[in-house]
């Protein structure tokens, strides 16, 4: 039918949850992407914390 095309996107497992992308809107997918971006930022900022650990090691 015209204007009702669908796309098989499958599922994605992330953060102990399974997301079926075919039943999600693009905005909902965008939300997961935003969450992922936040997690990546956290990962990088954790590196700084390790740096702090190193500094405390140096003092000892």
């Amino acid at each position, binding site marked *: 039918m*015209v*204007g*009702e*095309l669908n*796309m098989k*996107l499958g599922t*994605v497992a*992330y953060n102990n949850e399974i997301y079926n*992308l075919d039943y999600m*809107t*693009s905005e909902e*997918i*965008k939300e*997961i*992407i935003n969450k*992922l*971006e936040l*997690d*990546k930022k956290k*990962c*990088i900022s*954790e*590196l*700084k*914390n*390790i*740096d702090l*650990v*190193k*500094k*405390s*090691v*140096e003092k*000892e």
Partner: protein
Amino acid sequence: MGVKTKEKEALNKLTNIEKEFFVQKELSLKLANLYTDKKSLEVVNTKVNNQLNSMTVSITGINPKFNEKSKNYDKMKKEMVDILNDYESVLKQFCDRYDDQIKKVILQKFELESQLLKIISKLRSQQEKRIKKNIVTSVVDKLKRKSVKKEILETDAFKPPEMEYGLEIKKIRSKIRVLDQKIDSINAEKNKKVFEAMEVGGTGLIVEIKKPRKFKNVVKFFANRFNTYKVINQNIFEPLRQRIDEFKIINKLV
């Protein structure tokens, strides 16, 4: 907490970060690509549905009694589906142009994130080496512990690897931020351009219906008397076909 425990803890953290970052970067690449496709599909579907609705309304406006039992109805329906398919394929091609651009930027971002991951891996391997070195030196020279400690401090601890890579990580992060903004701007432009594509202009989708003059004020009664299919073709299909062709020429689409 002892020095060794803290060193090991740092190693564990680095290993976890490496694993997490790897999963996140792969997943976000996949999702970003899927999001781009899905967004285009939604925009195209909305446009096609709007077009279909406006055509249906216009046809009812021309002849409210025109239905499945009417003459030429099947012919009209087939033509309508053909035009809408053409309309849809043109829109898809138009979207693909923007999607290709977006996907290139997504790949660039993925490459930058791979560089970040390489740095994390380097940090992890350096940390492993440092721990091994500490163990070896402590076993070999237990009695000269103080001097060994001093040596370690001079070689490693005063130059923590994170400090070396800190600036590089910052640079990569800022490049990624720029790419993120680029993706958003291309997406916004795509949405805008696709919604503007093949529209009539300020008047929306209203078409001026050209009916035979003498029937103009007695449409209801004479609705079945004139050739509805011809009027629909003249007033709805032809202008849309023209708009599609013009759009194809302007944007060099097939």
